[in-house]
């Protein structure tokens, strides 16, 4: 009896402690003057004032690499702008304005030859590395050559390997069958660094660089806006500090440079004395020091921001449930937060080979309960907005349409679904497999929600969970496996490498993208109209007419009911009121890190 009483006291104490903590104020943060969602469309605290302050980022993860040639994480592409200058970049301004390509190291966009195979860029003659050496076009070429050393730097994108003209005929023949015999092996294997090198890139003089492509590719300016076109001084990439260790101190052309980096623990950046703001207008050098604390507890990351110990969560995926509730219920905190669409789509692939009848696929589109699916991903604030198209609203070329009444009838249009099933010749429904990633709780919930909704119209699903690590390489991404296991539906998520229809739609819906393993066109869309629209876009160097192509492809995919869009992902981002120049950058889907300062 006595023990029970004492335990009751302990429990009461703990509850009281929680209550006190929940009401905790944040004394170290300044009074705010901004409003909820303000940074989605406006610059919050605009300022060009330089301070001696230190900007602190927290991260619940570790980067794939701090080497700009070896990273594929969205937040790292945003962050490396602080110490790199690629040929092209995105304009530093809020909202969709930030999706405009502008020259960075280059003096202007690439000039393409008439046959669409040669792209020429001229670089600014007076940009310097952190050690004072002037950047030349050879340095840009060397940086790209490094990305071919895939055994040492395995993480980055492979656009150059795929788009550039093969090194020789042997390489061309080998590439056709998925090999790379005779292809350029990267500067660490090639003994003639920068003498022979990669012959698909030429440097007629120290400020000109020419890319020779295998096929016309009108979006090439987007490719060179990826951090991999950052110049690298070959003499910096040598010895114990080169190759894989380059990540510990990558040479900077941006406003900051590495002072120290304890791998995966803490990174400290300081001002780069040889950076000239006139040559790099898209970035700012306002604070004295930038610190990133890696590999923290996500709860600590959230609490650190609210308490003012940290200025920003570098990952840009927003706060978790506990902090979300606190922010949304505390007006002063809510005024410093933004609930924004980040350009990522949650959806389900509907395989056209396994479910060949379009009406059966349409039945799935109609029957899906978009509200329970939205809840599975976290609800309307940190889950996302109900999606009706493949392209999210912040992708260039997005046009709003709703073929399956997802917005007008979000819990599912049962009557329409049944009608489609009749047209499909299966009025009582059918059975199909549903693949999902069993180690991702949101995927599991979404698969269950979809199962329940489809069950209402007689579509029975057999749920099959797979590990994330091999989901695309061994299961959902292997068409032969999908067919033999009758996986008509597979859960998926998608974000683009660049914000136009090509970046978003090509891998999902171009017939050429269907691969025997690691397939991303899991619906196996191989439609002549869609394929020809992609081909037309690749050869069309007129941005405006290209922009008109993307919504057509989006509509075609939806008309075929090959993709069931679920939500345009949303994130609840918190900004410390002390931080200046804060705004959502639609390209990165998070705040723009290149321009931040402190009050």
């Amino acid at each position, binding site marked *: 009896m*006595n023990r029970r009483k*004492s335990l009751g006291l302990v429990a009461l104490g*703990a509850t009281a402690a*929680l209550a006190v*903590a929940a009401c905790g104020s944040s004394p170290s943060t300044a009074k705010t003057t901004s409003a909820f969602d303000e940074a989605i469309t406006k610059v919050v605290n605009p300022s060009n004032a330089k301070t001696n302050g230190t900007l602190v980022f927290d991260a619940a993860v*570790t980067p794939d690499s701090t080497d700009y040639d070896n990273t594929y994480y969205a937040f790292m592409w945003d962050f490396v702008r602080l110490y790199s200058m690629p040929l092209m970049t995105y304009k530093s301004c809020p909202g969709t304005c930030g999706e405009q390509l502008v020259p960075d190291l280059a003096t202007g966009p690439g000039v393409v030859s008439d046959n669409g195979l040669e792209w020429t860029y001229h670089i600014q003659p007076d940009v310097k590395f952190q050690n004072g050496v002037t950047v030349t076009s050879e340095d840009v070429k060397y940086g790209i050559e490094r990305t071919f050393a895939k055994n040492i730097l*395995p993480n980055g994108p492979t656009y150059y390997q795929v788009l550039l003209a093969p090194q020789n005929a042997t390489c061309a023949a080998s590439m056709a069958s*998925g090999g790379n015999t005779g292809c350029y092996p990267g500067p660490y294997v090639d003994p003639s660094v920068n003498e022979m090198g990669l012959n698909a890139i030429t440097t007629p003089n120290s400020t000109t660089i020419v890319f020779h492509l295998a096929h016309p590719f009108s979006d090439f300016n987007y490719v060179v806006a990826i951090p991999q076109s950052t110049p690298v001084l070959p003499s910096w990439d040598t010895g114990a500090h080169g*190759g894989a260790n380059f990540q510990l101190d990558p040479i900077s052309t941006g406003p900051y440079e590495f002072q120290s980096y304890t791998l995966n623990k803490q990174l400290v950046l300081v001002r780069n004395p040889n950076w000239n703001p006139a040559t790099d207008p898209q970035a700012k050098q306002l604070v004295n020091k930038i610190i990133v604390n890696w590999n923290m507890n996500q709860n600590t990351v959230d609490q650190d921001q609210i308490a003012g110990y940290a200025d920003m969560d570098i990952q840009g995926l927003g706060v978790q449930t506990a902090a979300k509730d606190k922010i949304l219920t505390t007006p002063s905190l809510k005024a410093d937060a933004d609930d924004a669409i980040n350009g990522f789509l949650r959806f389900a692939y509907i395989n056209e080979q396994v479910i060949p009848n379009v009406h059966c696929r349409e039945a799935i589109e109609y029957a899906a309960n978009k509200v329970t699916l939205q809840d599975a991903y976290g609800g309307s604030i940190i889950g996302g907005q109900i999606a009706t198209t493949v392209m999210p609203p912040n992708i260039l070329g997005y046009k709003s349409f709703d073929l399956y009444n997802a917005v007008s009838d979000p819990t599912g249009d049962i009557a329409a679904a049944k009608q489609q099933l009749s047209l499909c010749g299966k009025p009582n429904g059918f059975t199909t497999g549903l693949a999902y990633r069993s180690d991702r709780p949101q995927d599991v919930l979404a698969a269950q929600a979809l199962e329940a909704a489809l069950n209402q119209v007689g579509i029975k699903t057999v749920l099959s969970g797979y590990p994330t690590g091999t989901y695309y390489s061994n299961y959902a991404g292997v068409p032969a496996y999908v067919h033999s296991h009758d996986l008509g539906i597979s859960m998926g998520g998608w974000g683009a490498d660049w914000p136009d229809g090509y970046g978003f739609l090509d891998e999902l819906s171009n017939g050429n993208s269907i691969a025997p393993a690691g397939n991303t066109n899991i619906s196996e869309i191989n439609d002549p109209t869609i394929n020809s629209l992609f081909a037309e876009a690749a050869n069309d160097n007129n941005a405006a007419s290209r922009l008109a192509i993307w919504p057509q492809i989006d509509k075609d995919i939806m008309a075929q009911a090959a993709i069931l869009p679920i939500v345009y992902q949303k994130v609840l981002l918190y900004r410390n009121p002390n931080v200046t120049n804060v705004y959502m950058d639609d390209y990165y889907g998070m705040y723009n890190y290149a321009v931040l300062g402190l009050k």
Partner: protein
Amino acid sequence: MITFIIRRLLATVILLIIVSALTFAIFFLLPRLAGETPYDLAARYVGRNPIPSQIRAMETRLGLSAPVPVQFGRFLKAIVAGETYTNGTSKVYCPAPCLGYSWRNEQPVWPLLVSNIPVTASLAIGAAVIWLIGGVAIGVVSALKRGSLFDRVSMSTALAGVSLPIFFTGQIALLLFSYHWQIFNVTYVGITQNPLEWAKNLILPWIVLAFLYSALYARLTRAGMLETMNEDYIRTARAKGLPERTVIFKHGLRAALTPILTIFGMDLGLLFGGAILTELTFSLHGLGLFTIEAIDNSDLPEIMGVVLLASFFIIIANMVVDILYAVIDPRVRL
């Protein structure tokens, strides 16, 4: 005694080889048995949307095509004789005991492991001091004042301490002391850098970790003391007219402490291998967080390294306990 120690050391080496073989089999052999090819395995260590040649390059670099026993042989050889790796621009010699080369971080595993030890050791030792002194003292007083208010309150608190997980007590402690009252800031500062800051910044994790253990130790000590104090020899000691203090500390506590010593050795050894939950809750970059990172990244050499190091600490702690036992009780050496 020397033969005993040599015997135990040899057993330690054999045990470590068994542990490493088992760990290696789990991560390298089982996937193969489940039908995963070296190519599939390599595909996990490249970026998004890889091209086939990129995966094959990683397969070659990580040496995944070789038969699993050959890979294990290479692993053991590196531990004994060291190994040379390339980082692209230069050869990196990894001297013995070389626990391999991280597949994600592209660094030799051993220095990465070693760099995490000071944090974990600081956390474990500090907490151990608190829980040993606190737990044993509370246990003794509770046993001697059995049924008193102190006994009841402390044992109920102990029950709470044993039952509440660290990620709960840790979060509460952080919310109150770090975020609400802003008294403690939990960031690791090296002891050589600033001993005062080192201690101040670690107080919160020490107390939270010690709360769990001291609760356990208080209950164990109390039970041990109660049992011992009822022994015949205690009655004899009292009958001899020995002062109560001598009876309690020399005859009672000494006997009750022997099993506590065994558990203490095990617990400390285990914590040295990484106090995973405490380090995660307080974002302390020790072996525990390193382990989580290694598992998140499927970084097999790092996982192998951390398993071996943790086993090493546990085995060594056990050996030390055994030696201490052997000193106390010669029958153990037989």
